[in-house]
């Protein structure tokens, strides 16, 4: 699903973010990327959904080699990738339902499918009773659930989450992680970046540890 070979990312002013990263995440894996702030977790996630380009090295995601990536391929790739952020990135003027519908409308989804898909996604994250609530009327956990519903509404093959529980308390964090796990059990590849080592330790079998842009784990994936 995701392969990286000796990938380097250097930001302007010669600031290295990732150094010699290689990894292989298989279809259906549940992977937690951990490391302290500035370790390169966000950069790694950004490279996977093409928000950043690697300075050096090869990246292959869903069979697409990023060295031959054009705008049309990026669009196709993103349609098959759900992304969730720490700050939710919701449209605060729109309701929970409208936020999810927005992602469908932006892709030109058939009108007859929009209602059904949005309803299913919101039901999956347990928000079917808060459809008309606007994000700021909801708790942090509920807002993150809207973001997850939006990320999942187009049935992507993989879900990327950058510090998805960073703004949530411990109990809600566990709920959200359980939700990610259940999504993974439905066949979606899930990659979560978190600085929370305790949280990461709950999923030791697929674990990538970064330190100052380098992998320091045993390399299980």
């Amino acid at each position, binding site marked *: 699903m995701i392969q990286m070979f000796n990938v380097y990312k250097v930001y302007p002013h010669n600031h290295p973010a990732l150094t010699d990263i290689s990894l292989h995440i298989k279809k259906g894996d549940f992977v937690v990327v951990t490391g302290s702030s500035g370790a390169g977790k966000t950069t790694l996630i950004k490279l996977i959904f093409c928000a950043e380009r690697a300075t050096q090295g090869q990246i292959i995601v869903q069979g697409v080699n990023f060295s031959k990536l054009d705008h049309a391929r990026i*669009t196709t790739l993103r349609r098959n990738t759900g992304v969730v952020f720490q700050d939710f990135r919701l*449209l605060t003027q729109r309701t929970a339902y409208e936020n999810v519908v927005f992602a469908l409308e932006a892709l*030109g989804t058939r009108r007859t499918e929009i209602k059904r898909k949005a309803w299913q996604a919101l039901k999956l994250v347990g928000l079917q009773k808060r459809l008309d609530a606007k994000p700021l009327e909801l708790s942090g956990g509920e807002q993150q659930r809207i973001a997850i519903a939006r990320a999942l509404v187009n049935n992507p093959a993989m879900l990327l989450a950058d510090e998805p529980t960073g703004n949530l308390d411990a109990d809600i964090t566990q709920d959200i992680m359980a939700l990610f796990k259940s999504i993974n059990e439905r066949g979606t590849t899930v990659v979560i970046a978190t600085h929370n080592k305790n949280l990461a330790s709950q999923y030791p079998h697929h674990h990538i540890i970064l330190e100052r842009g380098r992998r320091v784990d045993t390399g299980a994936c």
Partner: protein
Amino acid sequence: MLSDIFYRVFYFLREALHGMSRNRFTHLVAVGTITFALLTFGIFLLTVINLNRIFDEWGRRIHLIAYLDDSINQQELNALRERITTLPYTHLVTFVSKEQALTLLKESLQGQSGILENLEVNPLPASLEIQLKDAYKNSQSLKAIVAKIKQFDKVRDVEYGQEWLEKFSAFISMVKLVGITIGCFLLLATIFIISNTIKLTIYSRRDEIEIMKLVGATNFFIQAPFFVEGLLQGLIGSLGALGTLYLGYRMFMSTTTAHYGFYRGPLTLVFLPQTLVVSLILFGVVLGVGGCILSMGRFLKA
């Protein structure tokens, strides 16, 4: 399939209206700018069209006077008269002899005709007054006809009040030049303002655009609502300009008709013809969409 297309068009329109209502003030400025620019342009067009009409109308009332050489004899005169009469643009030819010319001059001088009493020789030339057919009574044709008749033997000169007509023609040219110069500046300013308006809209909707990019929306889908915004701005602006122009025209007409009734008839001022009205609306739309393309181009590069 068709319902999906309608739904997409509805979606673009809805998003565009949503964007416009959220940035009412900036859009109002853009629409106002288009209205002002097109109104100025419309006033200029209306002025030039009506000046041209007046110019052509005066041209129609004008007849040519071909002054004849004093050495012309009756046979040559008949031949020349026949030659001019058979020209395709000639309606009527009247001969005015030297004596008739002097009599006419005396009549026109009225009480001061005494100054002509001591003339030993009649200095006035005989002439042929040539009425032209209506189709040829315009400034372009006049020049060509005068040039042709001047070449005829025994014709000393041809007059049609060209100096006055040329001055008026130069005045129209100057109005056109001033109009085009002002129009160019207004055009640039309008595109600049529209482009900035769309930029502000893009900035205010950056969250939505980011999400659209994130979920894999195509550039067309991201841009389309902004193009619709530009199009609506242009359409509303041009309709506003034309409405104001028509209102101004009607008010001007009712005032001049009330005070200067003699302006009715051939010199009645006309409004813009339908083709120009449609062109102005299209021009407004092009301005709106053009400004949008400018800022979208920069935005997509970013």
